[in-house]
Each structure stands twice: as C-alpha cells, then as structure tokens.
C-alpha cells in the first residue's frame, strides 16, 4: 500500500463530496415532499388515490434505479422537439437534473411507504382523545397525527437517507463526477482498485456515520417524553 498515492486519492475524492451531498440533499428533500403527498393520497385519497400510490410504489421499487435513470436521461431525449416546445428541455438536457429527478422519484416510492407506516401507527385512541378535546381536520392532523407519525417513521427514514446517499453513486454512470465517478476514473487510470476503494469507502462511511449520529439526535429531540425527568413532589 502506497500512502502517498492514497493521500493524493483522498484529496481528489474530497472534491467530489459536495456534489454527492448536493445530489443526496436535493433528492431527499424533494422526494420527501412528494412522498408526503403520495402517502396522504394513499390514506385519505379513496380507492383511486390508493390505487395510484400502490402502482407507483410497485413500479419504482420493483425496477432498478439505474434503469429508471437511463429511461429519464437517454429515453426522454427521444422526445426532444416536444420537450423543447414545452420548455422542459433545458432541464432534461442536464445529466445532473436527470439524476436528481430519478433519485427523487425513486426515493419518493420508498419514503411514501415509510410515511404510510408511520401514519397508520398513530393509534385510534390518540385520535379519539384529540377529538374529545375538540380538534378535527387540519388542526388534528398538524398537532397530533403528524408529530406522532414522524416519530414512528424516523428510524426507517434514517435508513432510507443512508440508502439514498449510496444511491447517488449511480449518477456517476450518467457522467456526473461525484465521489464514485472520480473513484472510477482514478481506478481506470491507475489500476490500483484496492487503494482507491479503501479511500472512497472511508469517505462514504464517514458521511454515513455523521448521518446516523444526526438521526439519533433528531430522534432524541423528537421524543422528549421518553427522557423527561420524573416529576418530584417537593
């Protein structure tokens, strides 16, 4: 093992970190919003909304993300004149936005299932209690259902965030030079797969570690009732 080479590799790969994080954060945020809509549709949207969400989740969870990315990046290019007419072409021309769209649509499917699980985990008694206090509709949802659902969904959501972080690596296949893209180029140039793998892997593990810690902090912060000081008499 060549420490000098690994240090240089490390410095090069570090320049890819912002892009990886940018891809991950953008698509996790957009995918989360979309997932919220999907899971609401599944729970309160009636048979049509329910059916739509089921179909959406089936398609996006049942096929590989890479194929979805190719369909958007290469496949939609086939409709260029039409896309130019409606003004979407400047976005779909960019591999970066195609990667973001594919990641967003994909994570929305997984996340909506997580949210749905969280919403359904809110117990009937809690809702009943809220109704007894006179809450209903949006107020009930905002004050009672949503906070409880978020708390239930958080551990699974943390896993999904880490999966997304790893999934951004696929963007390198459509020419985006994030960590894995740079690593692949370095390996192809130097043929020292093992050293580059160790360095790139260490960077990913460090990011994953930070994310899990962050999730633990959020979980702690969202469940004050579990670590409240017991009330004292005096």
């Amino acid at each position: 093992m060549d420490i000098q080479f690994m240090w240089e590799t490390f410095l090069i790969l570090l320049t890819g970190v912002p892009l990886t994080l940018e891809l991950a954060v953008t698509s996790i945020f957009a995918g989360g919003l979309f997932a919220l809509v999907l899971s609401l549709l599944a729970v309160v949207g009636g048979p049509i909304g329910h059916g739509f969400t089921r179909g959406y989740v089936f398609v996006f969870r049942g096929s590989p993300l890479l194929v979805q990315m190719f369909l958007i990046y290469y496949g939609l290019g086939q409709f260029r004149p039409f896309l130019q007419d409606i003004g979407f072409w400047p976005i779909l021309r960019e591999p970066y936005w195609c990667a973001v769209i594919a990641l967003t649509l994909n994570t929305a499917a997984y996340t909506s299932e997580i949210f749905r699980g969280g919403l359904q985990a809110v117990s009937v008694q809690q809702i009943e209690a809220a109704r007894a206090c006179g809450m209903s509709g949006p107020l009930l949802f905002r004050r009672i259902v949503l906070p409880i659902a978020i708390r239930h969904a958080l551990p699974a959501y943390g896993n999904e965030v880490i999966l997304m972080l790893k999934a951004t690596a696929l963007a390198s296949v459509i020419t985006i030079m994030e960590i894995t893209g740079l690593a692949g180029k370095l390996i192809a140039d130097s043929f020292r797969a093992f050293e580059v793998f160790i360095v790139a892997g260490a960077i990913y593990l460090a990011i994953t570690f930070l994310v899990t810690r962050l999730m633990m902090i959020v979980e702690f912060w969202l469940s004050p009732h579990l670590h409240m000081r017991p009330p004292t008499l005096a």
Partner: protein
Amino acid sequence: MELIDRYFALVGFGETGWGALLLSASAMTLAVSVCGFLTGTVLGSIVTFMKLSRYLVLRWLADGYTTVLRGVPDLLVIYLFYFGGSAFLGSIGGLFGYEGFIGMPAFLTGTLALGVVSAAYQSEVFRGAFKSVAGGELEAASAVGMRPWPKFRRIVAPLVLRYAIPGLGNTWQLVLKESALISITGLVELLRQSQIAAGSTRRPFEFYLTAIVLYLVITWASSIAFRHLEARTMRGTRRSL
C-alpha cells in the same frame, strides 16, 4: 394504434424485433442474480457464524464486514472486483511470464460483487432469525443427546431458514435490482442488452421502458414465489399475528 404496432415490431419476435435477445438477457440477469445470491448465502452463513462466535475478534471482524459493505455504494464494490480482479489476474500472469492484460470475466465479477454485498445483508437476516429460534428447542436438542453437527443440521438450520425466509426475500429483490449495475462490466444482461438495442435503433425510450417492465415481471414473480415459500414453511406453526 400505429404507435403500438411500431413498438411491438421493435421489441417483438419478428424479423426486426429484439424480443428473443431481451428474453435471453433476462435469463442472464436471473443467472447472475441467482449465482450472486447463493454466493452471498454461503459467505453470509460464515459471517453469521462469526457474529455468533464467542470470540470477540471474530465478532468484531464480522460486524466490521457488514458495516463496511452496507455503507459503501455497490458500484464501488463492482469497480473493486472488476479492476482489482484484472490487476490480480495480471500479476498471476506476470509470474508465468505473460505481460499482457487479462480481463476479469464479467460473469465472475458480477457473481463475486453481488455475493459479497448480499452476504452482508444475509448475515444480518440469519442472525436475526437465529435470535428468534426459541432457546428451549436448542436445549431440548442437547437434552436428547445431539452432538453439535446433528443439532445444527436437524434443528438449527431448518428453524433458522424458516424465520429467515421473509428477510431473504427482501435480499433477493435487492440482488436482482443490483444486478443491473453489472452492466457496466460489459456482461450482456437485461440492462446492457437494452443499451445495445437502444444504441443501434436509436429508440432508448422504448427499450428502457421494456427493461423496466421485464424487471417488474421478475420481481413480481419472485415476490409471489417467496410468499408461497413462506406459507409452506410456516405450516404447522401457530402465529399470534
């Protein structure tokens, strides 16, 4: 109507259709996934033994293995096996005086990469399944005088497999979807074949859409298969839920 006719001429089995090639590519996807999954089962069992070992070093190594393999993008693992394997083969060739480039066979790369990644997931599935085997059953096996190996073969393995089936089903779906990444090594599986077809007909949309449909058929069929398997192995057990 004309659009649909044109589509089926493209992906169908006619003179200009790519149907047969797409189907055989799907078979390749299945083949590499099955080989990778089984490799993962073998490796994963070894890692599970290490996780359940009484030696701290082995437990530590096994936990490190799962942490790394689950925290690193699969694409990097594939690069490692593809380029690392070629470099390794090249150095062996060098020992025998051959100086040229020896490429790593794509199927072997795929099997190894899928196996090593899925071993990390499968070992967690097996460990969880082992934890849910009731302690009394193991005690009973020892009480009737079974030695470790018969006890493992007759009691532990069947029970662990029974509890592991739902988790193994999830892992299988992961492997199946991950197999699409093997296309970058040039193995002509479903995605690579679609790329080839898209390139030579300039109809990427139709072919990638077809690829998605074929992947959906495979994942859908395997989820049904695993459901049946689960129902079958769970015969004779009473469940609270």
